[in-house]
């Protein structure tokens, strides 16, 4: 049987969900016989090619995040998101309680920094969106694995369900928001 092609991406996040995936340890060996990871922070391949399953960790916080989410969506049949940031916005949304300018000013030019007070700007630095959004506010999402981070068990459950042709919905006992 041909391997299921998977691509993953991380947006505004801590990479904890990918770490949780790697925490599957020896189970990864079994998974490797069923799936092939193409573009991903793990493989360090950055350009998406068409895959069966796209996976996103992290919230949509910048125009770049938006673009990545849209590109992956366009290249995958099923889009799964990992973690509270991608599912709900998560800890990244703390900045939503303040105006964007206030956040940048606080970060780059107050007591929170020792550097000079310029807010860096360059066409290579993607601008912040007004507000951080969960992924489903930007592209259609097919399945969700919440958790901060989701446990390896929850990630494994979701992948196994997908491999068996079902859209995973975490059972209540596997649900965690923290």
């Amino acid at each position, binding site marked *: 049987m041909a391997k299921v092609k998977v691509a993953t991406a991380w947006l505004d996040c801590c990479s904890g969900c990918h770490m949780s995936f790697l925490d599957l340890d020896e189970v990864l060996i079994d998974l490797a016989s069923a799936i092939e990871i193409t573009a991903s922070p793990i493989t360090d391949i950055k350009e998406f090619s068409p895959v069966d399953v796209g996976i996103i960790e992290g919230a949509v916080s910048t125009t770049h995040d938006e673009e990545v989410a849209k590109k992956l969506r366009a290249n995958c049949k099923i889009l799964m*998101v990992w973690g*509270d940031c991608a*599912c*709900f*916005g*998560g*800890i990244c*949304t*703390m900045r*939503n*309680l*303040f105006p964007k300018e206030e956040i940048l000013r606080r970060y780059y030019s107050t007591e929170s920094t020792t550097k000079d007070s310029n807010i860096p700007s360059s066409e290579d630095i993607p601008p912040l969106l007004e*507000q951080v959004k*969960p992924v*489903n*506010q930007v592209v259609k*999402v097919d*399945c*969700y*694995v*919440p958790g*901060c981070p989701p446990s390896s068990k929850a990630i494994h459950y979701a992948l196994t369900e997908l491999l068996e042709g079902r859209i995973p*919905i*975490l*059972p*209540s*006992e596997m*649900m*965690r*928001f*923290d």
Partner: protein
Amino acid sequence: MSEIILTINGRQVKGKEGDTVLEICQANGIDVPTLCHLEGLSDVGACRMCVVEIERERNPVPACTYPARDGLVVKTDTERVEKYRRQILELIFTERNHFCMFCEQSGDCELQKLAYRYQMDNVRYPYTFPSLPVDSLSDYLVIDHNRCVLCGRCVRVCSEIAAGHTLDFGKRGWRTLVGADLEQSLGESSCLSCGACVQACPTGAIFSKVNLYRGKTDECQQITTVCPACGVGCELNVMVKDNNLVRIEAPELTEPRGPLCPIGRFELLYQTPPRVISPLVRGKQGKLEESSLDRATQVIAERLRETKDGFAGIISTRVPNETLSLFRKFIAEVVGSDWIDTRDGGSYRIISQGIRQFQNKGKGLDIECPVEEILKADCILIVGANPAETHPIIGTLVRRAVSQRGAKLIVIDPSRDVFSLWTDLWLKPRAGSEGVLLNGIAMTLIDRGLAKQEKIPAELVSSLSQYKTDEVNRATGIDKENLELATEIYGQAEHGVIIYGEGLLERNESSLVTSVLHLADLTGNWVGDRLRVISLKPGANSRGAWELGLALKGIKQNKPKGLYLLLADEPVDEELLGWLKGINFLVVQASYHSPATSMADVVLPSPIWAEREGKYVSMDGRICELKQVLQPKEGLPQDQEILMEISKQLGRRLSSS
């Protein structure tokens, strides 16, 4: 109440007329999710989590506010209502900032549990991300509006159970905020910090600084015990993790003694002054030095052998009956002295002498009614007491009677209107003239024909006859109008409750107690063989000590040569410290270092409330169980073990039976 029969999920179930659909579901083990409902509070249907389908109703309705009727056909678990509930949850989540990874209450949150139950793995609606304030100016409580679901449990528990009426909703619509008084910070408001709202809050919107990050309910062992702070005897649910106190809650929040007070709910968690860990003995240079328990008990035994006479014992009434009775035996049999008292024995001697003067062969302290009687009152007369300060739950019950039953509140106090806004009539007699005023009210009752007692004893009438209006006015400064007004209010009440406390007791006149009892008797305020009178007695187990005969006579008139002071974890006051000066040989058995321990010749350790167990008697005579919730710190011995050890040194066997 007539019985009704409903069909719920195809099953016939019984209920009573007046029940809500939710009550019938819960009574029959039919699970309906709830969020704003809390048993014992009124239902308001704020959250809509309990929506159910009812035949012939166009839309799903909240079960908590829907009155059940005979023949109703209800469905609680259809796909439609489950879909609605999940949608309601999503809407609640978008309304404020409910992000669990930065919420202390994560793991102890009802909203989170519901989201897990409904497998809410995403939210289909845009979040509103309101930027809402956090109020953390109170000593104990924090309100984080970002976590609030506006269920109103806090508002209801504050008004219906704690009778604080501090919390209420402010603003309108989706801008609604729970607030204290007129948009004040909680710390500056009328909040009494009882913490009932903390226990009622289903999310992390109201929490306590004191409990923060100590542990989650799931990780804790829960032990139900009794509060050691005052004589009311509130039950406490103490949460313990790794032999540390995590949190204190009421087992039944909505019961009369349920709201608790800042002392019972929060202060007990602190163990601030340094603990007495090791025995200390005053050495040759006059300094206290660490010693073994053996050596310390030897020193005491030696001194006791030398000084047989003039040795006295004083014990705190925070210890349970078992310790009290062993201490009594220790002083009587081992020390050989009848010089024994408790720290608050004086109050009891006054109260019981006053009761004896009123009714010679009666029930003693049992002539007083249980504190719950306050909730039935239509008039409350407070004299020489400040319940809100000394016995906060009594204050709560008084405010409940006033706000929920419209009870009239009369305060007799020379200097303070202890219930301020709640008081209907504040009589301000000259200091020391309260007795004259009480007798004046009694006389006016008789004169105005308001006395309900069938045959008023002639001696009573003649002894009261000197308290005519003019004399009362001269002695107390209370004018005729107010005297008559008070008499009318109290005299015409059906359930008039008199509460008196330290303001009267510290005057050391048992006739004041007798006057109070006569007043209740004259107005027929009997419930069975008890009078609607409540005296606010001090220490948590002071009644137990009294019943065990530890406080029969005072000992402070003369100074003993030696004193064994079992202070336990009770704080010391200036009066005691002053009296301790000049005692030749002082043993202090205490949980904490204090000025009293530094005066002692021998200091012995003592467990704190959480490390002891035994029986308490509440001020209204209920037997309460004090349970050990913590293992004694560093294997410290129990009070009894030390007493037995000293006895052994003296060749005596002290048995605890």
